[in-house]
């Protein structure tokens, strides 16, 4: 990571958290800086009637003037009455797809004519991604997956190789969706750590903060000025607006024990009547990390690819063992999901598996809301006197 001395030597030494101002028409320069450094920039793009994360080449690809409405089981793109580039919240995609790819070949085995098998790890050019527009809950989700894939006894080489190369441009939320509850999970809406740069969008530009040496190095190449107090104040109030808009709440008080002591609660039956076991909640969740590994031979049987694909505890065969399927009804699968996310994740990784992004609420076709499920279980276990 290059860490040059600032060219502008008469500028005062600036502490890392200092705020700068990037004029609106200089955002393109930021994208170009990243591209010059060899990054493929991934950012928000309107596609398939939603704001998705895809490769972008310029600011023109960004969702200028778009936002969305979200509620349980429903998402709709909506026009804004301004030209905001980041005036939306989180959508159907998450950054995990770029760090933990949905499908990847992890090994190959080939049998030569003398009958000898050779196993190889496929060579790959690791993509060098810059993420543009990462929200606070998403930074937290990346940290959760870092814990899972990098900080346990087994390091995942696929994740590790990609993660090392990532440059993160975070964007502070200035509005919240009805499904957001990051405040309950202590993850947002303000970006505090885990970014290289962080932007707060204002009408005429961005208040920008560096969060790493790499971030400061990019700042030095940009046409930024120290943010005026009025600009910093405007950014602060925009960020507080997001916080004020958050309505959803998850009571995390004693949550682990509450759930693990409620394994026979009637709510699991009630939710099983609604749940389609379709896997959507786990797929959109930015922290879910499960996968399945399949050996795929060709017709000759001499060449085998070992493929890893996203999998989910809602897939009936996810719990198939030698004796059969362990979680053989929707009730036990929903219970697995909720108790893993909110309870046993603490035992496994010392934190919650939920960052409060609300994706599982929006993208659940029947609109099952985990905050409501938890509240129902709590009301059964802790009846109001």
């Amino acid at each position, binding site marked *: 990571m290059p860490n040059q001395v600032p060219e502008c030597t008469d500028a005062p030494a600036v502490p890392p958290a200092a705020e700068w101002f990037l004029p609106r028409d200089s955002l393109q320069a930021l994208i170009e800086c990243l591209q010059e450094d060899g990054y493929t920039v991934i950012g928000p793009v309107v596609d398939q009637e*939603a704001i998705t994360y895809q490769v972008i080449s310029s600011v023109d690809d960004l969702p200028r003037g778009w936002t969305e409405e979200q509620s349980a089981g429903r998402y709709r793109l909506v026009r804004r009455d301004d030209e905001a580039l980041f005036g939306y919240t989180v959508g159907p995609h998450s950054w995990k797809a770029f760090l933990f790819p949905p499908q990847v070949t992890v090994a190959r085995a080939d049998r030569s004519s003398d009958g000898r098998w050779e196993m190889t790890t496929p060579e790959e050019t690791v993509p060098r991604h810059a993420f543009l527009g990462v929200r606070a809950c998403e930074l937290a989700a990346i940290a959760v997956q870092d814990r899972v894939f990098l900080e346990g006894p087994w390091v995942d080489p696929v994740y590790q190789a990609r993660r090392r190369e990532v440059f993160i441009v975070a964007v502070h939320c200035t509005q919240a969706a009805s499904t957001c509850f990051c405040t309950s999970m202590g993850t947002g809406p303000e970006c505090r750590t885990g970014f290289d740069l962080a932007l707060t969008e204002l009408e005429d530009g961005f208040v920008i903060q560096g969060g790493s040496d790499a971030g400061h190095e990019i700042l030095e190449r940009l046409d930024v000025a120290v943010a005026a107090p009025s600009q910093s104040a405007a950014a602060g109030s925009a960020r507080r607006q997001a916080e004020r808009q958050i309505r959803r709440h998850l009571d995390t008080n004693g949550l682990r024990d509450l759930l693990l002591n409620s394994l026979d609660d009637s709510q699991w039956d009630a939710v099983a*009547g609604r749940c389609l076991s379709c*896997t959507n909640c786990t797929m959109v969740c930015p922290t879910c990390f499960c996968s399945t590994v399949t050996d795929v031979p060709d017709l*000759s049987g001499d060449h085998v690819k070992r493929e890893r694909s996203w999998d989910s505890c809602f897939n009936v065969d996810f719990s198939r063992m030698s004796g059969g399927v362990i979680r053989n009804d929707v009730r036990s699968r929903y219970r697995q999901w909720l108790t893993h996310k909110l309870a046993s994740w603490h035992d496994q990784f010392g934190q919650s598996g939920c960052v409060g992004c609300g994706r599982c609420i929006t993208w659940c076709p029947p609109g099952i809301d985990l905050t409501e499920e938890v509240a129902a279980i709590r009301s059964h276990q802790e009846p109001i006197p």
Partner: protein
Amino acid sequence: MTSSVSDDPVAVGRKKLAVFKFASCDGCQLSLLSCEDELPALAEQIDISFFLEASSRIGTGPWDIALVEGSITTPEDEQRIRSVRRQAATVVTIGACATAGGIQSLRNWADHDEFLRCVYARPEFISTLASSTAVADHIPVDYELRGCPVDRYQLLSVLRDLIRGRTVRLPRHSVCLDCKRRGTVCVEVAQGIPCLGPVTHTGCGALCPAFNRGCYGCFGPSAQANTGSLIRTLAEGGLPEARRVALFRSFNAAAPEFRIDERAARSDIGSSGTGRGELS
């Protein structure tokens, strides 16, 4: 690690394959024939003894593997499928007709005699059953490959596994998982397009949603499909009852979890359940 050639199940002796057709459009057999690149290799590894769509050779049983396309719609079919079962070690049904009764199972909801009178000048010459049913309703089936038509790569991989004595793995999750793996944005949630994906069996790679259409349910019900909940969701989303019925009345209409009648398509029933198809 080495393995000597004598371990090779193919070298020990080629298995014998037969392909049978019942009431169907032949599309699934064509799926096998359209594996042009793989067919020569397949023919080396398996003895294609009976496959009228491909060859005039009429080999006799017993067979190691029988692929069965089509549904059971005549008294003669009922007899013939039993004879296939008696002569085949492994029976694999292929396609929506064989696994669920096919589009022709729409007759199950109609007056069969009236159809005969309308269509045929001399209905007394026609000998058919009043219903179109899945092969598994008549004989034990070892593996069911769903889809209208089947996925030819899945068909090939099952044949490959059977040839080599490998465990056959048939995923049975919903189409939604495949949508998400390929990055498709849910058309149901983002656009309100009715989609059968949450209760439909994997196999197509989530084709239709990737082209901005709801899933038509070609691969039939996924494991433990909660059809009742999806119907309530569609009703709450404003889809009228007639359209809810029509959604399920296609290639897999007679699959137990998709077998809804007008009463069951109402949104007010089955408000709780175990997650098994409650409307079957």
